[in-house]
């Protein structure tokens, strides 16, 4: 084989590798990227019904209940404007507390509750999960907008 042919083969192999990698990446992104929605967005029916997503906000004070099986918990996540009930079977992370920020990953159930497969831990008491902080500030901004401007005009702008 001539050196020129070899170089061609090497280049072709490199391109094929890149193509395969790109296909893998795109495919994986399509299936595995998890979007984030706030309770307000879920209330506005913006969240998907058939795929998993994340919800974030604050655990409402006094909302944490344990079902009779002792292992399933229910709590309400709020962004101060809207709320969403969450059901989760399993151990809660150490720093899960009422009145503190939380992020849960799961799907919307037919009962209208969010069935979490994972409730995310935070590592530090002063740390608010960024998604939760985002949801709270969004709801805050929307409320402020409503109180100043005509609500009909403000609503679409507030819920991006």
């Amino acid at each position, binding site marked *: 084989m001539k050196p020129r042919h070899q170089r061609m083969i090497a280049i072709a192999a490199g391109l094929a590798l890149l193509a395969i990698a790109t296909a893998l990446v795109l495919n994986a*992104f399509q299936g595995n990227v998890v979007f984030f929605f706030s309770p307000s967005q879920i209330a506005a029916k913006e969240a998907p019904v058939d795929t998993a997503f994340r919800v974030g906000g604050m655990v409402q004070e006094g909302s944490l209940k344990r079902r009779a099986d*002792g292992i399933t918990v229910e709590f309400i996540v709020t962004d101060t404007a809207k709320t969403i009930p969450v059901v989760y079977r399993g151990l809660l992370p150490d720093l899960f507390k009422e009145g503190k920020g939380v992020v849960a990953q799961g799907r919307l159930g037919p009962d209208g509750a969010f069935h979490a497969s994972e409730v995310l831990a935070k590592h530090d008491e002063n740390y608010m999960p960024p998604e939760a902080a985002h949801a709270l500030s969004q709801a805050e901004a929307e409320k402020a907008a409503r109180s100043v401007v005509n609500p009909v005009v403000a609503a679409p702008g507030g819920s991006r």
Partner: protein
Amino acid sequence: MIPEIGHFALIVALAIALVQAALPLTGAARRIPGFIAVARPAAQGLFVFVAIAFGCLAWSFYSNDFSVLNVATNSNSRLPTAYRIAATWGSHEGSLLLWVLMLSLWMLAVSVFSRSLPEDMVARILGIMGLIAVGFLSFMLFTSNPFERLIPAAPDGRDLNPLLQDPGMVFHPPMLYMGYVGFSVAFSFAIAALLDGRLDATWARWSRPWTTAAWIFLTLGIALGSFWAYYELGWGGWWFWDPVENASFMPWLIGTALIHSLAVTEKRGAFKAWTVLLAIIAFSLSLLGTFLVRSGVLTSVHAFATDPKRGIFILCFLAVVIGGSLALYAWRANRVAPGARFDLLSRESMLLANSALLLVACGAVMLGTLYPLFLDALGLGKISVGPPYFDSVFMPLMAPAILLAGIGPLIAWRKGDAAQLVRRLRWVAIAALLGALFVPLAFGRWAVLASVGLLLGFWIIAGALAALAVRLRSGTRPGPAFLGMLLAHAGIGVFVIGVTLVKSYETERDLRMAPGDTAQFGGYEFRFEGVREANGPNYTAARATITAQRSGGSVVRLEPEKRVYLVQRNPMTEAAIDAGISRDLYVSLGEAVEGNAWTVRIHVKPFIRWIWFGCLMMAFVGLLAASDRRYRAVRRLEDAPAADATVIRRSPA
């Protein structure tokens, strides 16, 4: 007074670093011996002053000096001594100081163990490392001074994050940083060679032991971090594809490609430009990792208070280093003489393909890590890219790399013999297939992924054994470096087998258990005996006793704890693990519920220890390679022009 001495030492260190960067680099370019001679003493002086600064900070932590802001926010008078000292690098500022300390340690090592290198080369290498030190020292002095005073002093400190109060905190960060920063040596060698135009096999031989050393530290650091997360976080996971983990894994991937590529450059004179590029990328990724972890872009256990000024500083530094070195590369790389020719079927092309695969896999990891950050920064919405993405991209890319790693040692340099290769691979393939078919039977459940993983694991181990057999039959005694390579490959095999078995056959249950309750799964019967109080020096705890018994086997006693640390008042899960070669039993305690019961999470994790044992085997390669006489006797080889030829003749052809 002590903190001020530390602060002053840092300022002196910055001044020395400026001198160390300016004079030797100018001296090497203009051939001024006086300037060149500055490099070594400057590097040693820099080490002394950084060590003084570090000592001062450690002393402030040790002596509970709560008039230092850093101490007041990260320590407490009731914190045990070992953790008080480890808390030195528990904060953003302190960890930067550790970074610089490691950098100056590497510089010291270069200045001492480089007697065989030409003086102007040493001057260039230390000059470039000096430039890096200038960047980091000014970052510390201008944006994150670890010695900042708190006036009036706090009566007591806010304590170290309880998660960090663990022996892992003492070893993981220094080890990891040693590896991260170690790539600065390979980087400086590469830049020095580009500046000098002396990119040849000798350069690769100098650069190799340094790169291997850094790679070993990084491997150990990552493995320690994974092990720590496994037993400390209480979730039983060992790798989360968390951005911070990825930040350390990306330089590892490129570092792995780099040590292989360096081997080719040294032995065959090929891939010079490619090797240099990998050296630049490896260190750039170390810097990117520092940026990701330290800038506040990410929030995790590793990231601290956000200060935009810091992020922008590191980003600019990153742009200068990466942009500058890539520009230099573009300018100089075409002057590199082409290397020796090789056939498509040869060890060279196997290694080239492997490093390309590692580079692409690293790119995929980087994409998954940075894409959510970009979207967020541009205000396009919040997404998360979790383990499923990384699993489905990374594994298909690594599978061919592992197949090639099994073949590589069996094929000759330059021109492979296809018929001979097939003969050698026959037994390897049979062994791998047998393992892949029969091991799942032992677990009673067959799964495609389990078989694929086991096939790869056994393939690379059998490949390493076959290479050893070939070498022994050829009558040449295998050198330590060759044995080290085989051991590292076998380590990957052990790692892959461990990962496969854990992923395929682990079981996990979340349960509510009252005293006397039992649960059966994973071949064990678990029995909840009860909970009692057990207090530590700076925490109160509830300690449960759970016994596990395999039918007919002995009883294993597990005592997981739920701790509440006195200062930060947060609950902390302390898992109990019964470790074994073939399985770990892992129990963590949830919370107390009605009826004197607790929630409990129990895992049975088959062969999980193999994951870290495989990493240890990989790290061990370095000790063997470092003991190879060829590196200790660099001077002799350098004097002998036929050195390369001897090396080539020694390998089986």
